[in-house]
């Protein structure tokens, strides 16, 4: 029992450091594509330390301060529902459906906080964030449910164990994997869907008024959510890994593929991004669902 509780405490910390490593690696890789050296690997950690060590801070009201707290809290909660190789975590209490539901609380928290800041850029950013979420949730849910039909259970831990030994869903259900990849890619806010924090159009959207400690919290939440999204994709489609090291390596693989796309694309307009999500990824996910449904019968 004590082992269980210890892992529950250490998972968010692990998620934070893995997230920092993934973000640092991403910045280094983007720099190499730009033909330059780029920051050291632990640069996101330095940024967070600098932000948290800001001497003074401004506040636009209580909800403004609680926004980032809610964002980080929801991120930690979501991490606990994500199984790690060898540990069940909280999966008995909440399966795929609950996980998809909890994943949304984080950005709602940020939206409430940023809405309080009164800066028009922030409110445009929130409107974009929520509409984009409408976009990428649809293929994500269809892809998730395809797996539920295939395995007959919604328990994330079982997804991991059933895929062990190299028959990953990436090979068995390629179409659903592609749809799932594009959806997680949109959830991460990578380049074609970089619409929420577009610096040139809405001056980093919801985070326009956040600075200092608030932004430090948001960066912590962002690091953890990078771990969550890549981990979620790895569990669904890449078989989760026997021990924690292969799990992280697979996440690294996902980040590498995502960054290759990220540095090449310009940005969608928000309505075109949602229209894109509801056209191609949803179609691919539906075809994948059909295959599993007919095949399974």
């Amino acid at each position, binding site marked *: 029992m004590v082992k269980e509780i210890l892992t529950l405490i250490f998972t968010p910390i692990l998620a934070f450091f893995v997230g920092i490593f993934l973000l640092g690696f991403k910045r280094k890789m983007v720099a190499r594509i730009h033909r*330059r050296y780029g920051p050291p690997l632990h640069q996101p950690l330095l940024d967070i330390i600098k932000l948290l060590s800001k001497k003074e801070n401004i506040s636009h009201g209580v909800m403004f301060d609680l926004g980032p707290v809610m964002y980080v809290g929801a991120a930690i909660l979501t991490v606990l529902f994500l199984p790690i190789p060898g540990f069940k975590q909280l999966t008995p209490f909440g399966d795929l459906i609950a996980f998809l539901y909890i994943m949304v609380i984080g950005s709602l928290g940020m939206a409430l906080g940023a809405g309080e800041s009164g800066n028009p850029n922030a409110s445009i950013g929130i409107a974009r964030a929520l509409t984009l979420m409408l976009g990428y949730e649809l293929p994500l849910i269809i892809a998730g449910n395809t797996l539920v039909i295939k395995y007959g259970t919604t328990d994330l831990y079982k997804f991991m164990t059933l895929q062990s030994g190299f028959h990953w869903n990436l090979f068995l259900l390629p179409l659903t994997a592609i749809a799932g990849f594009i959806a997680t890619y949109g959830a991460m806010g990578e380049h074609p869907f970089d619409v929420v924090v577009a610096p040139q159009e809405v001056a980093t959207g919801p985070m326009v008024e956040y600075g200092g400690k608030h932004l430090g919290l948001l960066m912590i939440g962002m690091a953890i959510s990078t771990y969550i999204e890549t981990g979620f994709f790895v569990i669904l489609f890449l078989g989760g890994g026997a021990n924690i090291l292969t799990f992280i390596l697979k996440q690294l693989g996902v980040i590498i593929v995502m960054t290759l796309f990220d540095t090449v694309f310009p940005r969608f307009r928000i309505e075109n991004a949602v229209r894109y999500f509801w056209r191609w990824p949803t179609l691919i996910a539906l075809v994948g669902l059909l295959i599993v449904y007919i095949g399974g019968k």
Partner: protein
Amino acid sequence: MELQETLEEGYVEILDHLRKRSLWMLHYCTACGAIELPPTITSRFDAERFGIAPFVTSRQSDILLVTGYINIKTLRRLITVYEQMLPPKYVIGFGSCTINGGIYWDSYAIVKRLDLYLPVDVYIAGCMPTPMAVLEGFRTLMKLIDEGKANGWKKYQENYEYYKENQRKVLKW
């Protein structure tokens, strides 16, 4: 109490050492020196090796680069932007226009001395300093932060009235 001081001292020491490695500069091209900023940020001179990256809003950034001459209209926006930034914040003055008006000494629209209106931590020489000089200016600022000497923002808070008086004289608020 003795231990508490040394701990406090040590903590600030380490913090300054870590803080200097991640400085965010505000992407605000106030004047002609701003054309040497993209080469400093992008692949050729790559300021991101030192953790220096351009950021969009004043809330998020620490360094305010005053890249050259200061028009009165820009000065009013500069002061608002400076006061929006969160301390500890630093101001870097580019070129001779921020020291003594530079080549526009006789223009009716250009303010001559930046440090009358904003506390300046580092000046970079050059009538438009080259990217190498800009990187050298950033490294000097990092050294100042490391030694705990870069506290222009404290000076601004302490004699706030002096700065406001100078600003009011020029801007006729």
